């Protein structure tokens, strides 16, 4: 039977605290478990940690008793001994140069990210592509959430917060939830930060094709086409086709990430897990950026939703293993930081991993400007 959770009583709480008490208890246990794992740290590591704290480097290790306080501030990051640093904007930057997959360099550190505390400060700077892996691509679902989703399919949409913003949406996607009718109009819905003629799209958190939920204001945020059509849609298609093909369920959650009191989300955290096979076929955790396609030369004022002229900064160190960007039409390959690559439309990009020789052998021509 279809089950829709809607806990209006908690509607005025910050997003991270908007969940049924039972769920919060489960999450607290999970966080406790993760923190307990850290108790095996060597004395040396603890000394280093204390030194970091005393030097005010910006990283805070908290025990569970401080968890909620820090969460409410929206800035908690339990990171220790990490090579990650925060810049003046509060953005974390991977200084290892090893990977942009995760805000933390090692798997051990990744255990300290949690969905409950995940915030904008945890998201790496925009890498020039629509999404990045978070938590090494592993979703944050608890065993209890997985068990619930196995038992019955459901969909849940958080109540809007005091600013009228969406919280997370979660569902155990099943063919029974999928729509049987065409999608209707939703033009009368104006999610927070919506600005007419700014090129925004009303972006479903859980896609209509997955849940049939079309004009629910708790399921719609203001998003760019880069977020909605280029970033999120491929994941939605993958999950939808899988569920239709196998007639099995996928646990799915989309969490909009707002910075403080901004009205437009910086992006969404998307998680999915195929239940019938323990995540063998579908298993991901990614952050999808809500930005205007870089080639358009526009920026978003996330406080108001207004779009203005400007060039989006791209952190090329977070390009993962991508070596070159190839133009699908011209077959010219560029370094990722080449103007030719940055001005290229996303739909024309091919992310090529390999050596220069491999690119040449694949029939691609080097860009005469950046001369890769």
């Amino acid at each position, binding site marked *: 039977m279809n089950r829709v959770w809607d806990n209006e009583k908690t509607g005025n709480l910050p997003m991270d605290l908007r969940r049924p008490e039972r769920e919060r208890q489960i999450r607290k246990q999970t966080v406790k478990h993760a923190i307990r794992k850290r108790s095996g740290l060597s004395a040396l590591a603890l000394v280093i940690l204390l030194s970091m704290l005393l030097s005010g480097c910006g990283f805070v290790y908290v025990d569970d008793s401080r968890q909620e306080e820090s969460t409410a501030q929206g800035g908690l990051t339990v990171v220790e001994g990490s090579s990650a640093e925060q810049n003046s904007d509060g953005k974390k930057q991977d200084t290892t140069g090893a990977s942009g997959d995760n805000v933390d360099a090692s798997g051990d550190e990744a255990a300290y990210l949690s969905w409950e505390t995940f915030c904008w400060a945890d998201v790496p700077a925009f890498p020039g592509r629509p999404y990045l892996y978070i938590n090494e691509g592993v979703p944050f679902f608890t065993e209890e959430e997985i068990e619930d989703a196995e038992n019955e399919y459901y969909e849940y949409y958080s109540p809007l917060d005091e600013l009228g913003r969406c919280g997370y949406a979660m569902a155990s996607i099943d063919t029974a939830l999928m729509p049987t009718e065409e999608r209707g109009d939703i033009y009368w819905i104006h999610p927070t930060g919506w600005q007419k003629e700014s090129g925004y799209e009303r972006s479903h958190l859980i896609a209509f094709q997955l849940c049939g939920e079309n004009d629910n204001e708790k399921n719609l945020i203001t998003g760019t086409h880069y977020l909605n059509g280029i970033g999120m849609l*491929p994941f939605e298609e*993958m999950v939808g086709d899988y569920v239709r*093909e196998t007639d099995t369920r996928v646990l799915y959650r989309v969490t909009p990430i707002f910075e403080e009191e901004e009205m437009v989300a910086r992006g969404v955290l998307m998680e999915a897990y195929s239940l019938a*096979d323990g995540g*063998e076929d579908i298993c991901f955790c990614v952050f999808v950026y809500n930005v205007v396609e870089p080639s358009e030369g526009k920026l978003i004022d996330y406080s108001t939703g207004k779009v203005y002229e400007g060039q989006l900064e791209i952190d090329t160190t977070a390009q993962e293993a991508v070596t070159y960007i190839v133009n*699908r039409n011209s077959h010219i390959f560029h370094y990722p930081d080449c103007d030719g690559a940055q001005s290229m439309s996303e739909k024309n990009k091919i992310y090529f*991993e*390999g050596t220069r020789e491999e690119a040449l*052998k*694949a029939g691609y021509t080097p860009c005469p400007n950046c001369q890769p």
Partner: protein
Amino acid sequence: MKVIVCVEDRGGMLFNGRRLSRDRLVTLDMLVEAGRERLTIEPFSAKLFRGNMTSVHPVENLWEEEGCRGTCLVETSSLKGKEDQIDTLVIYRWNKCYPFDMALRIDLDRYQLEETCEFPGYSHEKITKETYRRKEA
């Protein structure tokens, strides 16, 4: 050697170590492609053929002498530099964009597109099947 691959619109094959999509009618068509022989697969692909395992032959390494024969479904290994071994390449296109972090890498200039057909899948609106033959040197 005939090689079969499945790709999304931008050539993507795998995401986060997983196949991007599957369709039972495509899987059946792969067995038809293999004809009377068993379809050679990587162990990774066995899940697609549950209930039909007598029609497939899983091998650990497709590109070693024992594995490299007949018709092979390739899902996880690169085709780069294997052009000399591949006489026929069959590409099933999902006609969708999925996320991917491993793409098909092969020099298609060395092949001639011989045949294209389209058919509806079980869970996909339109599957495009392309058959390429390697050009004479």
